[in-house]
């Protein structure tokens, strides 16, 4: 669905993104993982043309993104930011219904869609429809941010460290509600994060980035068990055991128990 070819972005003398190429299939959740400064956010913002690449091409759905006006492109892409970017002077309802309103939906349809999304994300419409963002907690605000990005049912969702500003408990709760959304099943999602757990939890494909380049891309298990180089290996070492346990399937359990027993016997 998304084809990125030889994308480079240079700021003055600094290469933020260095000749990247990759594809993302339809319905896939592609996670871009890396430390700060690895270029992942810059890359994400080039997808919806918040930043224009210095060179390279990007196609979404077989159309070059530069072939259409940026505003039209963006209305078909949902965007979630880390600090929500909710409009403080609009109510929750107005925030969520913004893109549909820009697209000219009729009011009843917007209202119905808003209520539906709020309920799916466990935001009580009675309490919050007419409230203002500052009246909500951080977790609730981020749910609104998600609802706002999903309101017009865009086929593509861009998320820039969406859960980063939340405390661990809230983060877990919001993530849980997010994963349960059935409409995500046929959406393509590009998620940027530095949280390894999150990457493994949500991603179909992980693109590990460093210094503007993709060091390795693949299924989570690939990066763990078949690291391309020492950088990849070291990246996951801190939480290796947790991640490996989370990644292996039930069918691997016997092999794991065997290996463990074998290890124990040798000790004895």
């Amino acid at each position, binding site marked *: 669905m998304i084809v990125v070819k030889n994308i480079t972005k240079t700021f003055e003398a600094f290469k933020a993104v260095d000749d990247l190429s990759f594809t993302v299939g339809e319905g896939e959740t592609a996670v871009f993982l890396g430390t700060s400064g690895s270029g992942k956010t810059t890359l994400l913002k080039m997808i919806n043309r918040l930043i224009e690449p210095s060179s390279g091409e990007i196609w979404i759905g077989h159309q070059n993104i530069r072939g259409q006006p940026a505003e039209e492109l963006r209305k078909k*892409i949902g965007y979630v930011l880390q600090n*929500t*970017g909710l409009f403080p002077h609009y109510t929750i309802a107005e925030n969520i219904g913004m893109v549909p309103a820009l697209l000219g939906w009729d009011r009843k349809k917007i209202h119905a869609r808003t209520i539906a999304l709020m309920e799916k994300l466990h935001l009580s419409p009675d309490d919050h429809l007419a409230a203002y963002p500052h009246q909500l907690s951080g977790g609730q605000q981020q749910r609104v941010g998600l609802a706002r990005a999903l309101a017009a049912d865009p086929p593509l969702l*861009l998320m820039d460290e969406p859960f980063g500003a939340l405390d661990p408990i809230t983060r877990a709760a919001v993530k849980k509600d997010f994963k349960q959304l059935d409409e995500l099943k046929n959406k393509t999602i590009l998620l940027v994060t530095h949280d390894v757990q999150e990457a493994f939890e949500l991603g179909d494909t992980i693109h590990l980035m460093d210094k503007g380049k993709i060091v390795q891309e693949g299924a989570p298990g690939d990066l763990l068990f078949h690291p391309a180089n020492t950088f990849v290996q070291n990246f996951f070492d801190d939480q290796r055991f947790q991640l490996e346990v989370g990644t292996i399937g039930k069918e691997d359990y016997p092999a794991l128990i065997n290996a463990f027993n074998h290890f124990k016997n040798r000790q004895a």
Partner: protein
Amino acid sequence: MQQQSGKLLQQTLEHIGLTFISLLIAVLIGLPLGIFITRRAKAAWFVLGFAGILQTIPGIALLGFMIPLLGIGAIPAITALFLYALLPIIRNTYTGINSVDPAVKEAATAMGMSDAQILFKVDLPLAFPVIMAGIRTATVINVGVGTLAAYIAAGGLGEFIFGGIALNNTNMILAGAIPAALLAILLDYLLSLLQRMSLKRRKITLWSLPLLMLLCSSFYLLPLGYNTRLLAGFTPEFMGRQDGDIGLRSVYGLKIRTVVISDAVMYKAAFNEKLDVISGYSTDGRLKAFDLTVLNDDKKIFPPYYAAPVIRREVLEKYGELGPTLDLLHDQINDSIMTELNYRVDYLKQSPETCAKDFLVSKGLYRAPRNGTKGRVRLGSKIFSEQYILINMYSMLIQGYTDLQVETRTGLGGTKICFQALLNNNIDMYPEYTGTALLAILQPASAVIGRLTGNRDSVYNYVQRQFGEQFGLCWLAPIGFNNAYALMMRRRQAQELGIRTISDLTAYLKKTKV
């Protein structure tokens, strides 16, 4: 004072009108300009710098710049006020929009909003409190600077303020200053209400606001007062004096539309046909320069203004040689000579010092300064050329004929200020006029005035005696000219309309009543 109460309303409405017209134009231009420079950093530096410089120019100076370009009246006043209001509005718009949370802006862009949509749905609503603060600042500035509009015949509450200063009438100053202050507070408060309104109610109000502003501006255009064929310009001092505007109305029944204007500007304005009748002094050099003629005061409401030095008695007694020295000018200068001297200074731009010296030399009275150190005499003067010339003459005479040193305190604005300085021993002597002493300082009962007016000598004798008895001040011998208040018109126009006296003028206006 009671006559002036009707004027207060007129002035307040004029003031509101001036404030709002200039504010409206400033918002119409400043707001889009502020939005524009948020997108161009280079332009921002230039625009903000320019508006900032405008603000540093003192109010009176800015008005002065306007006069040769735009004349007198409402247009230069509004232009000056508009320029003052620009900086707060532009700067606050710029700052307000730039202070919008970048995350919100990013979200708006990422949603697919166009630039215009971002401006109207995000930037302006969120920057509104800051923009409004700028408008409030501009309003308060305008109300304050607007008091200067009276200087150039644009009306407003400044008329009372200037008049009160010239006449040293504190009540009059307050009558202008307090309403101005209240107006500023009131407008600021009303605008603060708007600032605090919720977004929905605000939208409705914002549309009605320009209409309201237009309404307030229209006050200025309401034709209050007379609308006559001829337009008169009077100084603030003339407006308040018994022997000025008040006398014209009561004795002659003169009905003419009047604007208040400063002395510095009015002669040129008459010459340029912006005014038809002006108040002035019968020995003013500008009479000659601008080809104006004096209308005869046939009903004698302007008393004689015999000029003579007024001096503190103890100074006169302390330095015996001082009296005879000052009397050297007795009967040396008649009306036409004084007009000529004034003309040289005011129009030919000679310095008062040169003019004074030339005159003394021509009369054989000049002596080089003796640079004596016997004592010191302080001479004061009001703020017009005639006084400066006389003071220079006296100064040269004292330094040439005595061993006394001279210290001059020129530019004491107005009769009362000069007189108070004399009483309070800040100065020892200044040249005064008998008519002024009678009507502005002594202010005796009208019966007394009636008995005296018209007769040069009886006024002089009365004033001399009263000053001696009441204040311990002495009047020395008269210099010889009579600088009376006068109404004047362009000579040609007066000839065409057959107007030679003030009664002629009154009759003409009655005949051609609009």
